[in-house]
């Protein structure tokens, strides 16, 4: 007997059940429809390719909760709690359909009642309820007592935790009252049955038991449908949207911004919410406010304005506000009617420039939010439409324009081709060299900045020792365009990319070895959109393979404790964590100590995203924090494989006055020493 089949104040329980459901479901659908329409205001973007792969990805990430479990660390077990809650709640969801929907609403209670299925399922629910309850209590304890940095103790979270807790309690109550009422003698499900036994032994009257049963049942029901309505109004919207967000996740190169089609576009970048793509807006719906991005962001860690989480949340709030203001009117009208300027009021210019594009936020995000390209889209608007940027960035871009590289001032000392002096090199375009299969692309920094030229020279020595044949472009080499792209000056990036591709083709180049991870990422992942079709390899992979094959033998060794700093554009952007470590392991005596933040959670050196040309005006210096990471390993040498990282680390060491106990080196310098 389900309480739905009873009559209340002359009204059939069924009528009450379905009217309540209709109202709640109506509200739920209306909200979803509204959100969907808002999302559709975004620009088009094709995320329907490779459906098979997308389904697989979603199933793997969401169902077993890999998306959360992969973020679990010794210090942060919250991912585990979330998984418990997810699995536990999944059973409840099924139970709501069976026991409340089918049994109650459709009056099929008699089909289930007393069956073994009922016993088994209720028992599972009992256990799941315990799991969920534990997870909830733990979550509440964490959020309100321990207060980890990444979580805000919000009212919304409290409502959710209380609701879920109440659901768990009511679930037990329903079973307990029901069993007591029907005098079911059973020890399964354990907690429900225990409650029933207690009620019976306490001698509660039949009438009270009946009332208790009905009240807890209806309360349970109202709470469930209420929860359904609440979900799309709260951060728990992510329950509905994040699986979709994972499904629509970018399959292309990581963190890559969308190319702008300058032939067609009339505005560049994003200054209004509807200039984002629909996937960007879906990102906003998917954020669960877990704050992992917040605590892994170098800007946040060093006390800057930018917080990736706050940015996403402010954008979401702004989207809902502009949408609510005039849902009927066209996208433009609604954006105009909002007095708030997206750039400035919603996301400040400082925050936009604080981003080092390191991708730590995106890498750790369990729901597939793409933060980095949003920051670049905002910069694009500032730079390409409004000419607004830090003065030093403007000077950097001017240098790229007039001198073909971002390094002001070096020209007083050297020209791009100067580093080749004194080396026996095949310089393309000189001395009848008009072809090379393999090109060594050294990059602006490696060609122009003294310290980095030393690294380039080491690389040449090592490649020569391994008998690798290659040509270089010398004075003809140009910038890869990465600094321009990261600060949003897309037009310059595209022009440069097209010119470089022409040069590569004119010398018949098939394979490109790069010294700098930024060049590597641009050439390998971003040039193909502009017609490039070359094999691109970073020197770490090449050298690791040469060592693996025995061509290079770093037997000379290195006698000190080393730690490896993963450059963002090699690690997170290209997932090359192994090669550098293979090289280090092959060097006898190099005692490798990993930093706590390493590989995919490595901390940026502070120089990415154009930050080599910006001053960190607020908070601490990122490179100092990174040097602290280094010193806590006890390493005497910090090794990296990126020219920017090398400069930043060296400066950090100088700043912390650790020159006597710590040195920064490029990995290839270590290799060079070890093979000699």
């Amino acid at each position, binding site marked *: 007997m389900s309480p739905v089949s009873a009559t209340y104040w002359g009204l059939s329980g069924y009528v009450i059940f379905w009217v309540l459901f209709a109202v709640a479901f109506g509200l739920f659908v209306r909200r979803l429809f509204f959100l969907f329409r808002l999302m559709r205001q975004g620009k088009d973007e094709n995320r329907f390719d490779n459906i098979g792969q997308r389904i697989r990805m979603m199933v793997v990430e969401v169902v077993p909760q890999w998306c959360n479990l992969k973020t679990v660390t010794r210090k942060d077990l919250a991912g585990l709690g979330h998984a418990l809650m997810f699995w536990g709640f999944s059973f409840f969801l099924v139970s709501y359909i069976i026991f409340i929907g089918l049994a109650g609403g459709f009056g099929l209670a008699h089909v289930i009642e007393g069956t073994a299925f009922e016993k088994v399922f209720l028992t599972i629910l009992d256990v799941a309820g315990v799991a969920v309850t534990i997870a909830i209590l733990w979550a509440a304890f964490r959020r309100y007592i321990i207060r980890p940095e990444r979580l805000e103790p919000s009212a919304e979270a409290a409502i959710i935790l209380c609701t879920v807790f109440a659901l768990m309690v009511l679930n037990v109550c329903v079973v307990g009252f029901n069993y007591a009422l029907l005098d079911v003698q059973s020890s399964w499900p354990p907690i429900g049955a225990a409650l029933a036994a207690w009620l019976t032994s306490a001698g509660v009257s039949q009438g009270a038991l009946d009332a208790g049963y009905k009240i807890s049942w209806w309360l349970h029901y109202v709470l469930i449908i209420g929860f359904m309505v609440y979900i799309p109004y709260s951060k728990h919207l992510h329950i509905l949207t994040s699986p979709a967000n994972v499904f629509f996740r970018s399959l292309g190169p990581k963190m890559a911004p969308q190319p702008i089609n300058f032939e067609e576009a009339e505005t560049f970048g994003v200054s209004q919410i509807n200039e984002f793509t629909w996937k960007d807006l879906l990102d906003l719906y998917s954020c669960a406010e877990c704050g992992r991005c917040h605590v892994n962001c170098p800007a946040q860690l060093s006390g800057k304005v930018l917080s990736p989480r706050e940015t996403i949340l402010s954008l979401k709030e702004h989207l809902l506000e502009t949408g609510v203001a005039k849902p009927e009117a066209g996208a433009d009208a609604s954006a105009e009617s909002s007095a708030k300027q997206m750039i400035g009021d919603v996301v400040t210019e400082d925050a936009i420039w604080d981003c080092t594009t390191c991708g730590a936020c995106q890498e750790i995000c369990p729901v597939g939010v793409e933060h980095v390209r949003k920051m670049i889209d905002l910069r694009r608007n500032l730079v390409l439409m409004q000419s607004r940027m830090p003065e*030093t960035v403007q*000077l950097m871009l001017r240098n790229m324009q007039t001198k073909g590289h971002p*390094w*002001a*001032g*070096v*020209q*007083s*000392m050297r020209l791009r081709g100067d580093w080749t002096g004194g080396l026996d090199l095949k310089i393309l375009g000189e001395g009848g060299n008009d072809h090379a299969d393999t090109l060594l692309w050294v990059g602006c920094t490696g060609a122009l*900045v*003294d*310290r980095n030229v030393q690294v380039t020279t080491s690389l040449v020595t090592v490649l020569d020792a391994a008998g690798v044949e290659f040509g270089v472009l010398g004075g003809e080499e140009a910038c890869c365009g990465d600094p321009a792209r990261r600060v949003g000056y897309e037009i310059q990036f595209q022009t440069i990319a097209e010119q470089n591709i022409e040069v590569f083709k004119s010398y018949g180049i098939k394979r490109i070895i790069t010294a700098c991870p930024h060049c590597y990422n641009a050439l390998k992942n971003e040039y193909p959109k502009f017609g490039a079709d070359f094999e691109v390899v970073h020197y770490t992979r090449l050298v690791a393979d040469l060592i693996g094959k025995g061509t290079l033998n770093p037997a000379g060794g290195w006698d000190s404790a080393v730690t490896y700093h993963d450059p963002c554009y090699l690690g997170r952007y290209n997932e090359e964590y192994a090669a550098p470590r293979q090289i280090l392991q092959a060097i006898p005596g190099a005692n490798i100590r990993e930093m706590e933040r390493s590989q995919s959670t490595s901390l940026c050196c502070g120089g990415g995203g154009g930050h*080599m*040309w*910006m*001053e960190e*005006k607020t908070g601490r210096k990122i490179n100092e924090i990174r040097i602290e990471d280094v010193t806590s390993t006890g390493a005497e040498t910090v090794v990296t494989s990126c020219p920017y990282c090398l*400069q930043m680390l060296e*400066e950090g060491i100088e*700043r912390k006055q650790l020159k006597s106990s710590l040195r920064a080196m490029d990995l290839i310098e270590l290799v060079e020493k070890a093979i000699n």
Partner: protein
Amino acid sequence: MDTHKGILLCGEIEKGTLAPITMELLGIGRVLADKTGQELSILLMGSDIGGLGEEALAYGADKVYVAENPLLEHYHSDACTMVAADLCRKALPSILLLGNTDAGRDLAPRLAARLQAGLATDAVELDIDPDTGILVVTRPVFGGNALASVMVRKVRPQIATVRPKTVKPAEKDASRQGQVIRMVAEVDSSTLKVQVVERVEEKVEGVRLEDAEVVVSGGRGIGSSQSYEMIWELARLLDGAVGATRPACEEGWISMLHQVGQTGKMVSPKLYIAVALSGAMQHIAGCSGSKCIVAINQDPEANIFKVAHYGVVGDYKEILPAFMGKLKELLAK
């Protein structure tokens, strides 16, 4: 062309006395006049010239043209062009020299155009070609990377502006005789097309870095904000601006607005004095456009010596006081 004879100078008056450039023009003018055996005359324009005409004679002029008019109290482009062009048309000088100053820079090309003459600006050397008797003007070009020698063969006068402090000023000899000619300097204010609204003297606390001709920068080696005062003092002495490296700013010795470098200001003064800074690339990025870099550092291996033109190795605390002492002496001359 033979109709043009003599050397005419365009003198300048500053706060009621002959400006230093006037003495320099008289100095080089005398040399050239003696070489060519020609007469040296000078034009003085102002509102109340008083005895300055006689003083110019004492400094070597043979003839002084005095043009007095209230409108000429300060340099006024239209008015001075009119007066000077008038005089040139009458006096027909072969050579006309001006200072490469605020006034001379403005006036010389206008005169050249009006008189259909030839002009070489910013001369650092002036001589007479022995074969032709024509003035040879040497001037730095391409930011001082090269020197060009310029001659005006076909037209007269041959006009040049002389860079201040490059030629020897004339010595005073009160016994010299000559002629002071008071001109009728009729300037009709209605013919002046450009009106001067106001003149603003800027006594800024320190010169703006971006515009400064001299920049003095200190680095981490300075050691404290009290010691940084020495950098300020040197800058004031040279009418220059104060710069700094990033560590100096971060130590709080000076505001961040003074940071020079890749992530700071870019400066390109004529003279950049780098004191107790190592010359990191990121710093050099901001000052490499300087015409001349002077380094003071106690470490002979410091990178700054790789980019500097002049260097002194030693403790800045000993070097700067002596340097400033000598500078005061030299600048007073």
